[in-house]
C-alpha cells in the first residue's frame, strides 16, 4: 500500500493516512470536471481519470446520470476503477450488455450529452493527442492511439477533458491531432479541461482560466502551463474536495 501521506494534512486538514497526494490530486481534477455535469445526463466514459469523474458524479453530484463505456456496457454503476472499458468490475454492475456498435451509434445519433476524456496533450484549440509525442531531441514516442477518443470528440454533444497537473500536457499545438476539436454538425466539441488546480474553458476558441480552487493562485497557475491562456474577468473560486469526496476517491482508486 502506498504510504505517501506527506502533504495530506497541509492540503485539506485530513488525517487519514490512506488519502495520498496522488489521490488528492486525482480527486481535485475529477471534482472540477464532475461539477460541470448536470443530473440525468448521459456520459460516455474513457479510461483513467474520466472514470473517477463518473464515480464522483454518480455517487454524489449527479446521482441520476447514465454511464456508457465504449465496450458496449451501459447503465454502469462505476464503483471501482476499471482498467479497461470491458473490465469485469463494470461488466458486473452494468444493467445492459450491448455491443461496441450500439454505443458508438448512440454517440453518432447525438444521444451522448458529455464525453469524458483524458489525453497525453491538449492544446489551445482544444485538440487532443493520444497518438505520439515528439521529444526535445526530436525522437518520436508512440502512444496507444485513439481508441474511441477521436470518435467521442467529434460526436459527443460536448466533451470535457480531464488531465493531471503536468505543464508539458498543456501546449499551444499538440504534437499530433488524434482528436480534433471540430465537432459534427451543431455539437459543441471540447468545451473545457479540468485539472487538479483549475478549469479552463474553450468558449472563445482559446483557453480561459474560468474556475480555480480557493487554495491556488490564478496568476501562478496560468503561468505554470506551457500554453497561452488567459484569466477570466469573472473567475469563479471553488472550494477543493474534502472529507467524504476524498474518502470516496481513495476507496475508488485503491480497489481496482
Amino acid at each position, binding site marked *: 500500500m502506498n504510504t505517501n501521506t506527506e502533504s495530506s494534512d497541509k492540503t485539506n486538514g485530513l488525517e487519514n493516512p490512506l488519502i495520498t497526494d496522488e489521490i488528492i490530486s486525482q480527486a481535485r481534477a475529477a471534482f472540477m470536471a464532475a461539477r460541470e455535469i448536470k443530473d440525468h445526463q448521459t456520459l460516455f466514459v474513457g479510461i483513467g481519470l474520466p472514470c473517477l469523474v463518473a464515480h464522483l458524479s454518480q455517487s454524489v453530484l449527479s446521482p441520476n446520470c447514465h454511464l456508457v463505456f465504449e465496450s458496449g456496457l451501459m447503465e454502469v454503476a462505476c464503483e471501482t476503477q476499471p482498467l479497461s472499458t470491458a473490465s469485469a468490475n463494470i461488466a458486473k454492475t452494468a444493467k445492459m450488455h450491448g455491443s*461496441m456498435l450500439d454505443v458508438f451509434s448512440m454517440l453518432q445519433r447525438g444521444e451522448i450529452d458529455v464525453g469524458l476524456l483524458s489525453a497525453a496533450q491538449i492544446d489551445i484549440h482544444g485538440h487532443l493527442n493520444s497518438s505520439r509525442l515528439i521529444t526535445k531531441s526530436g525522437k518520436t514516442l508512440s502512444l496507444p*492511439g485513439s481508441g474511441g477518443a*477521436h470518435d467521442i470528440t467529434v460526436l459527443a454533444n460536448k466533451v470535457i477533458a480531464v488531465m493531471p497537473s503536468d505543464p508539458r500536457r498543456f501546449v499551444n499545438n499538440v504534437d499530433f491531432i488524434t482528436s480534433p476539436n471540430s465537432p459534427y454538425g451543431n455539437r459543441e466539441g471540447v468545451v473545457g479541461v479540468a485539472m487538479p488546480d483549475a478549469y479552463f474553458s474553450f468558449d472563445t476558441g482559446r483557453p480561459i482560466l474560468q474556475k480555480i480552487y480557493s487554495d491556488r493562485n490564478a496568476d501562478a497557475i496560468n503561468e505554470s502551463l506551457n500554453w497561452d491562456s488567459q484569466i477570466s474577468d469573472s473567475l469563479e473560486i471553488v472550494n477543493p474536495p474534502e472529507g467524504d469526496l476524498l474518502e470516496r476517491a481513495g476507496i475508488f482508486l485503491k480497489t481496482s
Partner: protein
Amino acid sequence: MIDKVMTAQQAVKKYIHNSDTVFIGGFGHAIAFAIAHEIVRQKKHSLHLVKTGADIVFDLLVAGGCANRLSCGWYGNPGIGMSNIISKAVASGELALTESTNFSMMLRLHAGKLGVPFIPSPILADGDLAGSVDGIKTIKCPFTQAQYQAHSALNPDVAIIHAQRSDMNGNVQLWGSVGDTIEGCEASQKIICSVEEICESEEILLSPHLTKLPAHKVVAVIKQPFGAYPSYVHDYYQRDERYYAEHTSNTKDSLKSDEWLQTSVFDHDDFECYLNSLPGTLLDQLAWSKS
C-alpha cells in the same frame, strides 16, 4: 448434424492460411488466447490482423512473427501502457500499422457484415488521422450534398474467437461484454471458436437468445476450458490481473519478449500443457465471483 469439434491444432492447420486477414475476437473479455497460441506455434506468417482495440494477444502474434500488417484503432496493454513489441515491429518495418479509430473499425466491420461496400460517417474528416487511413474516402451525401467519410467494408478471411459454450454444430453462445466480437465474426468468411464447454443441442434450445453466431459460418469448435486465459470469461473466471500488470515489463525488450514467447508458447505442445505449467492453484484462485 455435422460435428465440427476438433483440436486447436487441427483448426488452425486447416482454416488459417498465411496471408489471411484475421479478426481476433474478444474486447477485454473472452479474448481468443488459446487459438492465438496455436497460430504462433504453427508459425503462420504474413497475416493481416484486424481489430478495434488490440490487446496483449496481439503482442503474442506479432512477437511470433505471424503478422506483417495490423489495422486497428488502438494497441497496448489496457490501463497499463504501450505495446513494446508492436512499437518495435512498426519501427523496424516488420509490421505495417494502419491506425484509425475504434468506431471506424467498427463501421468497416459492420459494412462487411451488412454486405455493402461502405458506411458513411462524419468521423475522420479532420485531424492528423484523417487522410492517413486506407479505405476511407470523402463522399457527398446524395440527398443533402453534405460531406461524409466513406468507411470501406472489411471482410476478414477468418475470425478466431472464444465463447462460453457451443454445441458440436457451432451454435455458439456468448454473453457478457461482447465489444466488437459479433460484428467481427459476421463480417468474416468463417469463424473458428474455442469454448469453455460443449453442450447438447437440446440445451441450446433452452436459451436460443444466447446464441450469437450463425452456425453455418462456424467451421471449427474447440473445447478449451480457460481458453481465454489470462483474460476473463463472464460467469466462468476472472482476469489474471497480475499477468497483465507484469506483461509490459515481461516484454520490455527483445530478450525478455523471446523468453516470454518461449515459456508461454513454444515450451508446450498445446494450450492445455501451458495451463498445466501455471502455478498450482492459480486457475482456482481466478474462480468467477458475482460481486
